[in-house]
């Protein structure tokens, strides 16, 4: 069990992590080494603070400890270089040992700068995720490894590889230039979206480490929203996360099996999240320029505001998917539009739209296409074809709970077919 003191200290540490790192990097440079030093200071604090209490100036404490650690590393690196090269030191020692107690100006943008740096387009997505969680989120390598179900060594490799490429490319520690900023922000938001999804899809007990990631993604997105309050897509992403996470308690049973949206117990939905998300997206849609996260959030809001599945405003959802497909065309959006179309105009209309995706080799192989087709065939009353599609989808998915769900849908149709044959036989 985590004690109250421990949770309080952890929350504080995660919030301070990017500020401390920002101060160090602006003062000393050496992003890679500074990041290691901050991580060590955080680990030290995580052990110490719950025992002895949080210091009066926690940020100052962390900066002092991390700076000492960093200057030690720089000094020993320097000493090694000196031994190796038998050459004079490159930096005057007093600059390296300068007391960190004096003023470190607090830069509001440090968190944002770190997010842009961690989600630099030159890094692989896996490295972007790991570095964002550690440098900005203040998570330890071990925590990230547990969340992504990979060995700690692998996460350490990804982080060190990411830092090496940042160092090698000489990316400065500052916000990207204005003309690039919108595109770069898209990458930052995508990384946060991936972190959220990684946590959200986790369902059962063993996966609780992973579901912490949703809270972390929401926390970081709130942070971005605080720094960029006028950006519609930032608001849209935060709204999308809240409106999706609102359904978390209802989307899986205790054994980990999945509950589809129309069968969820809506009393379990998180009303506070729904209210906040709906307000956010409503405001964004009326004030900012339109974007895909806002539209996805709007669709989630329409689902969430229906008291019963039967009350869902499908015509509105269909319109929103049409808009989404116009501004960001993608086969997965078409797939979802087919569901909405089926709900408005009947399953055949949805199936016709799906058949346009069969030509796309990439989607045709995807289990989601077969799963949606199965669902629409079932709606259309073609149970035999639906069963075949459920089975194909079950064989193609790589998610265990989804495979079980699809198999149970297929089994249910078989059961029904048997019962009706038996009934016919008796009459």
């Amino acid at each position, binding site marked *: 069990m985590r004690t109250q003191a421990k949770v309080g200290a952890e929350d504080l540490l995660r919030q301070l992590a990017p500020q401390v790192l920002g101060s160090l990097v602006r003062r000393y440079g050496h992003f890679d080494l500074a990041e290691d030093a901050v991580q060590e200071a955080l680990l030290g604090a995580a052990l110490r603070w719950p025992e002895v209490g949080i210091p009066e100036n926690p940020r100052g404490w962390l900066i002092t400890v991390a700076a000492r650690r960093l200057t030690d590393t720089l000094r020993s690196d320097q000493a090694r270089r000196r031994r190796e090269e038998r050459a004079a030191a490159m930096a005057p020692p007093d600059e390296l040992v300068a007391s960190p107690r004096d003023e470190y100006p607090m830069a509001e943008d440090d968190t944002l700068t770190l997010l842009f740096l961690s989600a630099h387009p030159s890094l692989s997505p896996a490295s972007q995720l790991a570095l964002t969680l550690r440098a900005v989120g203040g998570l330890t390598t071990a925590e990230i490894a547990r969340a992504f179900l990979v060995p700690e060594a692998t996460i350490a*490799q990804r982080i060190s*590889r990411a830092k090496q490429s940042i160092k090698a490319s000489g990316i400065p520690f500052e916000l990207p230039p204005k003309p690039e900023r919108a595109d770069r922000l898209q990458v930052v938001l995508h990384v946060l979206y991936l972190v959220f999804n990684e946590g959200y899809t*986790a*369902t059962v007990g063993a996966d609780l480490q992973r579901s912490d990631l949703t809270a972390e993604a929401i926390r970081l997105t709130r942070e971005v929203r605080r720094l960029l309050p006028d950006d519609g897509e930032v608001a849209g992403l935060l709204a999308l996360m809240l409106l999706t996470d609102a359904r978390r308690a209802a989307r899986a049973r205790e054994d*980990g099996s999945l509950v589809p949206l129309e069968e969820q117990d809506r009393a379990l939905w998180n009303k506070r999240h729904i209210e906040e998300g709906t307000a956010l997206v409503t405001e964004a849609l009326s004030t900012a320029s339109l974007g895909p996260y806002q539209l996805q959030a709007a669709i989630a809001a329409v689902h969430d505001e229906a008291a019963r599945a039967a009350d869902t405003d499908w015509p509105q959802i269909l319109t929103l998917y049409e808009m989404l497909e116009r501004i960001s065309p993608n086969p997965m959006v078409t797939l979802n539009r087919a569901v909405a179309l089926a709900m408005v105009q009947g399953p055949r209309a949805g199936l016709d739209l799906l058949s346009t995706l069969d030509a796309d080799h990439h989607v045709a192989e995807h289990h989601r296409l077969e799963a949606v087709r199965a669902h629409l065939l079932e709606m259309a009353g073609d149970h035999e074809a639906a069963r075949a599609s459920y089975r194909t989808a079950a064989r193609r998915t790589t*998610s*265990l*709970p989804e*495979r079980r*769900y699809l198999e149970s849908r297929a089994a249910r149709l078989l059961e029904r077919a048997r019962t009706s044959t038996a009934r016919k036989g008796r009459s």
Partner: protein
Amino acid sequence: MKYVALVYTNPGAFEAMPQAERDAFMREADAYLKEYQESGELLEGGIALADASTSKTVRGRNGLPAVTDGPFAEAKEQLAGFYVLDTETLERATEIVAHDPAARVWAVEVRPVMDQAGPEM
């Protein structure tokens, strides 16, 4: 996505290789593992298996498990070990595995690992 790479080799053919060639093969295999572990795509903790002749098989017979030696398969290739990749796509996983020397000489099967997590329905 995680993928398991199942490495199939032919022990007879491997033993028949000249010593220098076998050493070169092992060096190449080690370098391969190291390179992709360092890129953060090949997970630490791959497993190498003893020869299939040391296997036991537990198989149901008349509803009860029975233990037999082997499989003693006459097949030239046997499962020699496996390791796990964590990559964005299956394409990337097969691209990496193409650098495994076993894939050049024998065969490496790449198969997705089932995820305990499930998407929104």
